């Protein structure tokens, strides 16, 4: 059972229960009031009859025989009855259990069946009965009285046809419960519709969550309502957004790592082939002394190459991983001093900035890599210029050489790991094909950029811009 069905069912049940109790109570009160009114009317009529008969007879004075009394009472009674003529009200009179006359269209024997009735008392001299006769409801009331000193007991019967009242009450019931049923049906319908539309975002939420768990991370609920469910949807969307971002960055990281590992395992094969090949040759082949020396030399060379490769690779991976944030403000002169001691010749430093904001070790590695590249690319004794200056909120490190340059079609690829413009020369010079990849990653880590501008056979300028500390 759906939630909206449950809530609707419960609310309808509660409404029905309270409303029907209320309606029943109102109808019961109404019915009893009407019945009481009927009774009151009869009661007062009976009193009028009794007292009038008694006083009329007393007014005559004297003592009469029972028979005479009977006819006198009968006479006055018929007089009153003809005066007090009401619709549906009939009068009957009996004396000592015998009918003197009956104005009622019903069998008088029916009216006097007294056996099931309690005895009348002084306080409550009226006897009420309800009867059902020929499909009509009758209310019969009787009261006994005596006239002068006679022991004769007269009894007045007033029969009122109360069918109309009963019908009225039944009509009330029909109208009351009919209205109730209608109101309940309408309210049930409204509740269900409202709940359904209010809970619709939940179904959407479920569908979206399912789709996301199946891998469709781009899906959102985009719920427009402003209630709690809308807030939940919005929170859900924010969560999906954050999750998608995280997954994307993880995917990217993984892809990059896979690419690096693939490239590395390929790159490592060449020195490994050399090591294994020359080693095996030394071990198995009948070589002369000179050939043995060549083999040993090649093994050392290949080993060095593998060592460089793994060191650079570690550098690159530790940059791809979370590098601890060691950014701080430091003096450019310190950086330049340590670079100068490593590259004492052919490198000219032009420093116009005093401070750099960043990780000193990483920036040293970046500059050293760029200098190394430039030196490798430059023939003979041409100079490499390193300039560091501050420009528009950025610290710009520029390494300029007059070397062989990079053909334009290669420029956009040179920062990819293991990309080489000239495979042979780069290897001979001891490159692993990772230098610029490391540099561009260091620049990116600092939130900066690395741009290359080159003209084949003339020069190459590598410009790294990283944000300076704004005070």
């Amino acid at each position: 059972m759906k939630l909206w069905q449950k809530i609707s069912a419960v609310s309808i049940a509660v409404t029905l229960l309270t409303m029907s109790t209320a309606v029943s109570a109102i109808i019961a009160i109404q019915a009893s009031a009407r019945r009481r009114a009927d009774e009151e009317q009869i009661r007062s009529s009976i009193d009028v009859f009794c007292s009038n008969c008694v006083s009329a007879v007393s007014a005559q004075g004297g003592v009469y025989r029972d028979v005479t009394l009977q006819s006198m009472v009968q006479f006055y009674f018929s007089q009153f009855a003809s005066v007090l003529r009401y619709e549906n009200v009939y009068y009957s009179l009996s004396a000592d259990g015998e009918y003197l006359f009956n104005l009622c269209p019903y069998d008088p024997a029916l009216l006097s069946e007294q056996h099931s009735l309690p005895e009348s008392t002084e306080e409550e001299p009226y006897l009420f009965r309800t009867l059902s006769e020929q499909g009509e409801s009758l209310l019969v009331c009787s009261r006994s009285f005596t006239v002068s000193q006679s022991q004769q007991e007269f009894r007045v019967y007033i029969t009122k046809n109360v069918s109309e009242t009963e019908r009225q009450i039944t009509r009330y019931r029909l109208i009351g419960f009919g209205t109730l049923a209608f109101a309940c049906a309408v309210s049930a319908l409204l509740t269900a519709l409202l709940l359904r539309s209010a809970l619709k975002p939940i179904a959407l939420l479920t569908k979206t969550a399912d789709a996301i768990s199946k891998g469709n991370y781009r899906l959102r609920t985009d719920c427009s309502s402003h209630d709690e469910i809308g807030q939940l949807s919005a929170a859900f969307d924010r969560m999906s957004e954050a999750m998608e971002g995280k997954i994307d960055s993880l995917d990217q990281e993984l892809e990059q790592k896979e690419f690096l590992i693939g490239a590395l395992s390929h790159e490592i094969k060449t020195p490994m082939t050399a090591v294994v090949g020359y080693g095996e040759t030394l071990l198995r082949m009948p070589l002369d002394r000179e050939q043995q020396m060549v083999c040993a030399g090649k093994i050392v060379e290949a080993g060095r190459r593998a060592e460089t490769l793994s060191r650079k690779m570690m550098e690159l991976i530790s940059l791809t991983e979370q590098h601890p944030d060691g950014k701080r403000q430091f003096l450019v002169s310190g950086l330049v001093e340590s670079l100068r001691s490593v590259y004492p010749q052919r490198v000219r430093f032009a420093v116009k900035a005093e401070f750099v904001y960043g990780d000193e070790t990483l920036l040293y590695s970046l500059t050293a890599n760029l200098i190394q590249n430039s030196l490798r690319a430059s023939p003979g004794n041409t100079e490499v210029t390193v300039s560091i200056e501050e420009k528009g909120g950025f610290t710009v490190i520029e390494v300029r050489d007059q070397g062989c340059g990079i053909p334009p079609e290669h420029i956009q690829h040179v920062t990819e790991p293991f990309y080489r413009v000239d495979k042979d020369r780069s290897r001979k010079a001891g490159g692993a094909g990772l230098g610029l990849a490391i540099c561009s990653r260091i620049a990116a880590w600092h939130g900066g950029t690395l741009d290359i501008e080159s003209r084949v056979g003339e020069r190459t300028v590598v410009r790294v811009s990283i944000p300076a500390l704004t005070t």
Partner: protein
Amino acid sequence: MYKILIVEDDPSIRQLLEMNFSVAGYQCDTAASGKEALDQIAGQSYDLAVLDIMLPEADGFELFPHMEKAGIPVIYVSAKGGEADRVKGLRLGAEDYLVKPFSILELLVRMEKVLERRNPKNGVIEVCGVKILQGERMVLAGGERVELKPMEYALLLMLAKHPNIVFSREQLLNEVWGEEYFGETRTVDNHIAALRRKLNWSERIVTVHRVGYKLEVTLP
């Protein structure tokens, strides 16, 4: 003497192959790129080409049709070890496909098998007073016929064809008995002992400590 063309862009591997092939008694030429290789085969004929796949200018797969046209059998030696590349190389019609890092000795043995198949010779091999008549499958020592079991004969051929080269027991087991043979290296020792006894070669077949065996021949 067979002529081999080595096409390999990495200088140290190129030199490695060249050195080994020379020691094994082949004459070699080298090429560092696809284009150089095409120039080489245009000028002269070769008995076998050992090709790298990733080469500048024209890669190893592109070179194949030219090699085929010139009637040069090809063995690929590549860092590309994926199944797709191996299948591609072999489907083109290459004789063999070795993945770097490879064993030099394995390459030498594979080369020799290719060369033998291409140039059937019922030749006579003579080493240290033992004559092997390959056509008749007969072995003569000092003019006397020596009875050898089939595997002893195969082992003798392997050693005699590669004098002074050290083979490991596993290698001999692989190349002589075949890769499907799940024998123990002991089998090799037993057959070596039989050869030493039957040919009186206890001095000639040298046990190289922790490596294997070689047939020691003093070169002129």
